């Protein structure tokens, strides 16, 4: 009877929601594994791109690459780290969701949603940074274009 009251008073995770969340967790895990693979590929690319950039700059200028290849490699590695952590939060969300649904574990569900929040926090912050850069680049471009006339 008490359980019945609880269900009517507060909303719950019923069978339909469980089904949706279980599938969501599965897709999230799949996406996270793809993200892990991508972050590994970016690290490999960082090593090659850095060396290639250094060679190209060395061939073009007598002074050589002067460490620009290292800068390119560092930027790629930072990108790989960001992708890795995003995938990690997503993987934890997917894994936690599976556990929470299978074992009907409230604490695990809270942790799972927390990881999804962290994932979206990173995505949100990165998108805002990207938009700010775009706005600045546009303003600089317009100012540079106007100063020509």
């Amino acid at each position, binding site marked *: 009877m008490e*359980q019945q009251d*609880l*269900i009517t*008073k*507060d*909303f*719950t*995770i*019923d069978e*339909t*929601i469980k089904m*949706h*969340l279980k*599938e*969501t967790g599965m*897709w*999230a895990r*799949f*996406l996270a594994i*793809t993200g892990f693979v991508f972050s590994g590929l970016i690290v490999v690319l960082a090593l090659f791109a850095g060396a290639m950039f250094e060679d190209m700059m060395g061939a073009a200028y007598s002074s050589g690459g002067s460490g620009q290849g290292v800068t390119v490699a560092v930027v790629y590695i930072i990108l790989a780290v960001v992708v890795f952590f995003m995938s990690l939060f997503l993987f934890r969300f997917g894994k936690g969701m599976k556990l*929470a649904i299978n074992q*009907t*574990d*409230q604490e695990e*569900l*809270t942790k799972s*949603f*927390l990881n*999804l*929040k962290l994932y*979206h*926090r990173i*995505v*949100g912050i990165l*998108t*805002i940074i*990207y*938009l700010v850069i*775009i706005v600045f680049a546009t303003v600089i471009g317009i100012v540079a274009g106007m100063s020509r006339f």
Partner: protein
Amino acid sequence: MENNLYSQEDKLTNVTAIDIEGSIRDTMQSLAQWTKICAISGFVGIGVGILSLGITFSQLSSFGSSMLTSYLLTQLVTFVVSFLINLFLFYFSRNLNRSLDDDDQESFVKASLYLKNYFRMIIIMVIVSVILGLISGGSTASAIFKLL
């Protein structure tokens, strides 16, 4: 023994459903807030992308029409898919907020459905991008080997 019985009973009462109360509400409220930020900034990003596509389109008018059309088509498909992804995320956020505010079970069902569709759409986009990337990478590599 009494402890064991208690935990067993506790587990049994929770078997049917998980109640959304306490700390999970705060987490979900925060999640709804961040997903809304993501969705709105995503919409703005798509708008900026469309603007820059217009500028690029006017600059690339000297290129061949077939090349330009394929470029434009790829960009438009990307924008449509990105828009749908952000729309699902926005609807998820809105329904989650509504369900938390009004204790509305139906909105929570909708929110979970939108979250599922959001991830499903991202997966489809990732798979299509990987396949297209492999095809274009393969054709570029074969062209390079032919030149050598």
